[in-house]
């Protein structure tokens, strides 16, 4: 969730109304923003991912003004422009580019800071850290349209924030942004935005140019988005264009037509979406019709234009910066927010059926009680564990994670025996005798199907004097208590000492294993006390019992 920093006076300026902090905090909540910090006139809030229009003071001020009624919802008018954008030589792997022009700007230091904050926050979130969309802004009076989006082998220009002219290769090699984003461009197939005289505007998605950057003096700005996802790009262009236009008393937004193949013939496309909301839908989703209680003003205060309102439906126009509104439910949410979540009330109705614990979980609870009754202590462990320990203790395959943060937690346990041994290890330095058990899930790797999970019970008896006999005593007591008859068959496992291990069979099917852990494994795990372990498959045992 992006943290946004604004000045109270700047928000007041855009909202066209004075604001108290309490008032702002309350309105921020309706915009899904959380007030985090107030330092003098600086306000820091956390904006929600779905409201990119809240990532700077322009969008916040606009919504606050509309909410308070000091401003009307805006109808954006887009004028034509004489120029065009040529994308006919665009790179194949990053084929899309759109432009927008905003004129009559009146910028100051804070306005410029806010516009760049918006650009940065959009990059970090929606733009997929520039992989999907890259945004740039330039002073239109310092470039000579038409602008071309091209693929080049190399070029040179003075990158933003640098004194010297550099080649594109050099930028990738030496600048901070170049190093960070080099993986997004292909070698010697560099995307470039240039004007009609060949002046570089930007090397997207890496670095813009110093010479035509937006400053406090800029009166006309040209905004570009380039990238791979055209609809997302258009949304971003709409958000930034409408925000920038807030920095003018008489903003003029101009569209730029596109030459070459493009899903849109021109940009920006600032048309309001029309959403029809059935009032029956409102009541059936919320359990109340807020319009009936408080009137349609609830929708207007959230920035919607009401096109028509009748007994059974309300039709609204959604402003183009509201990229989060996809269908009628999004409008209904705004209605609920505007009404106030804490005013909605609400009780839970009587359940349509009885509650029920999963039968296997209930059986596990019973086993847990028996094990406690036998005097063993319950332990718990992570399912994620060290693949080396799994490899050491198990002969079967296990699920591995491709992108672990730590090797210790990069495999999913396929048995509880490794985690029982981990528990013995954790406690063995402090206790000379241990009797522990764990009930938990494991994941088995299977061919060509999603790995299945199984539920297991495992126990460990560790300390001088414990032998297989002790393991068998616990097993016998457990099985006798649940009324399961079982047989033991000699088995050989690399985890267990040869000749001191047995498979547990119920109705001829193997449901588990019991044995003394081999000294090699113990030493390998740095366990220096003899340990007897057993593991039982609860799912199998349960199915045997219920038949």
């Amino acid at each position, binding site marked *: 969730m992006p943290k946004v920093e604004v000045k109270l006076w700047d928000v007041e300026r855009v909202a066209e109304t004075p604001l108290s902090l309490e008032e702002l905090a309350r309105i921020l909540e309706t915009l899904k923003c959380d007030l985090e910090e107030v330092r003098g006139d600086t306000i820091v809030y956390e904006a929600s991912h779905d409201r990119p229009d809240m990532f700077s003071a322009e969008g916040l001020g606009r919504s606050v003004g509309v909410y308070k009624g000091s401003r009307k919802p805006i109808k954006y008018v887009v004028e034509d422009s004489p120029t065009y954008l040529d994308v006919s030589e665009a790179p194949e792997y990053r084929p899309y580019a759109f432009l927008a022009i905003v004129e009559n700007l009146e910028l100051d230091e804070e306005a410029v800071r806010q516009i760049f904050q918006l650009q940065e926050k959009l990059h970090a979130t929606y733009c997929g850290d520039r992989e999907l969309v890259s945004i740039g802004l330039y002073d239109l009076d310092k470039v000579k349209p038409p602008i071309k989006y091209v693929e080049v082998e190399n070029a040179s220009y003075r990158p933003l924030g640098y004194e010297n002219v550099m080649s594109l290769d050099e930028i990738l090699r030496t600048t901070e942004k170049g190093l960070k984003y080099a993986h997004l461009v292909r070698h010697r197939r560099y995307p470039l935005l240039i004007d009609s005289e060949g002046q570089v505007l930007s090397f997207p998605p890496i670095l813009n140019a110093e010479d035509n950057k937006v400053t406090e003096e800029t009166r006309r700005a040209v905004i570009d988005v380039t990238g791979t996802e055209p609809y997302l790009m258009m949304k971003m262009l709409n958000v930034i264009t409408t925000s920038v236009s807030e920095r003018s008393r008489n903003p003029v937004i101009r569209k730029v037509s596109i030459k070459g193949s493009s899903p849109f013939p021109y940009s920006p496309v600032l048309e309001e979406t029309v959403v029809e909301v059935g009032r029956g839908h409102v009541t*059936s989703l919320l359990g109340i019709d807020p319009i009936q209680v408080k009137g349609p003003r609830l929708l207007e205060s959230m920035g919607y234009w009401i096109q028509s309102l009748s007994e059974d439906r309300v039709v609204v126009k959604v402003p183009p910066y509201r990229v989060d509104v996809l269908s009628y*439910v999004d409008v209904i949410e705004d209605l609920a927010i505007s009404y106030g*979540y804490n005013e909605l009330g609400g009780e*839970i*109705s009587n359940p349509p059926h009885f*509650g*029920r614990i999963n039968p296997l979980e209930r059986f596990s609870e019973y086993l847990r009680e028996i094990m406690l009754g036998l005097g063993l202590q319950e332990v*718990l462990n992570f399912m994620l564990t060290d693949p080396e320990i799994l490899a050491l203790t198990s002969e079967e395959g296990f699920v591995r994670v491709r992108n672990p943060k730590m090797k210790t937690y990069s495999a999913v346990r396929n048995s509880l025996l490794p985690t029982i041994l981990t528990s013995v290890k954790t406690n063995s330095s402090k206790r000379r005798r241990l009797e522990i058990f764990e009930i938990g899930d494991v994941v088995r790797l299977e061919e060509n199907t999603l790995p299945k999970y199984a539920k297991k019970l495992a126990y460990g008896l560790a300390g001088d004097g414990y032998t297989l006999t002790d393991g068998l005593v616990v097993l016998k007591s457990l099985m006798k208590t649940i009324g399961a008859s079982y047989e033991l068959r000699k088995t050989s496992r690399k985890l267990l000492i040869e000749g001191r291990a047995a498979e547990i069979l119920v109705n001829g099917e193997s449901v588990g294993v019991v044995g003394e852990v081999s000294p090699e494994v113990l030493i390998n795990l740095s366990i220096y006390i003899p340990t007897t372990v057993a593991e039982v498959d609860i799912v199998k045992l349960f199915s045997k019992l219920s038949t």
Partner: protein
Amino acid sequence: MRVLESLVLPPRQFRIVKYLGEVREGADVSEVSNSLGFKESDLMRDLAELESKRLIRLEKTLRYLVKTSELGLKYLELGLPEERVLRYLIANNGRARLEELASAGLNEDELRASLGRLRRYGLIKLESGLVFLAEGALSDFLGEVGRVKEILRNHVKPVSYDNLPDWVADLKRRGFVDVDDVKIIKVYPTQDLLKLLSEGRVVEGVLITNLTSEALVTGTWKKAIFKEFDVGVEVPARTPRLRHPYTLFMKYVKEILVEMGFEEVRGPYVESCLWNFDALFVPQYHPSRKETDVYYVDNARAEVKEVDVLERTKKVHTEVWKYCWREDVARMTVLRTHTTPVSLRTIYERGAGEYRVFSFDRVFRPDTPDPTHLMEFHQLEGIIVGRRVTFRELLGFFKELAKRLGMEEVRFKPAYFPFTEPSVEGFVKHPKLGWIEVFPGGMFRPEVLASVALPTDYKVAAWGIGIDRLAMIVLGFDDIRNLYSCDLDVIESTKIPGVILKNA
């Protein structure tokens, strides 16, 4: 202990009352102790107990022991100082210098006192440093000396007095005798005791520390006197074999949900992206699908059998998000990052209907464990499905759940989750921590329900709680890793909180 109307007494008490029954008119403690052969100090506790049982009456009196002092014994041997001065004068022709007398084995005090005494009887005169023998009341003097020595001889062994004789004060002042106060306890049998004794209803009991089965079976317990315990003595504590605190917490929470009519469901840990993301309306380019936020699995393939879900999901993504949706991405395998796929799978399997299900299970997100972060944690997830299920009902559910978890105040704030609209975050008020964020939820989006083909007149209220945070608060842990601890020191030191004990 009164058994069958007999009075059972411990052996020593029994012998004391028997003795008193015989002497009847009462006896000194010392007499009792001498007669029965017990030490006086041992008797005192028994006497107090017998007195509290109203079997005896104790009468305490003060007496004096007078005994010839060390000095007195010395004078008995050498003669009293004034006697010795007189003897010296007689032996030295009736006169002597003061210095001479001082050298005759008397110290200054003794000499001065002796001269004073002799002069009172008129037996000496002092003249210019010389002491002269004089004609005085010699026989009176000798009589007095004899009387004092007689007393000293009689008190070489201490003699006890109810009241002190007149001479004691003078002899005590002169240091010839020592006087001690002694408390004398006299023991009298009560009428009750005498009655019980005469009826033969006082029985000698056996003092025992532990009741034995033999004592129970043979009936010797009837004569048993239980040794009294000192309850102030520290005893060692036992360490019980306990459930792990987290499984106890789970049981407590699950029971609450079952009481609210929820059925428990479970689902796979290793999941396809289709169920974990795509069917939940999360676009494939969404940041929550990045490798930094999801554990991807390479060595297991997610077999996606639900082709209809795949097709419908593709349609929704293509139409609403308008991007090139890729089936191979949807078929990628992950460790589930939330339990919402379990809820969605349930809707897919059960379809239209009125039901409530929950799951309490583990989910995984890449992280490095520290006191507040884990790469594996629990989610408490649930859905309410039905024709008349509304957002208000979801809020009502949160309020009810909070109440049952022991928290009264709930507040709601708008929130955002990709798969719900409206979305909400519920906060509860904790007495120490203030408002804490605990209940995220919302109404499943129509796009999500379209993926699993739930008829459009059905609504789903969904919620997914990061329950470990609540577990930490309830169990009083400030390190989240303790929830998954196999360290017996941690497990055994966990206090089971009252909220669980009251509600569980």
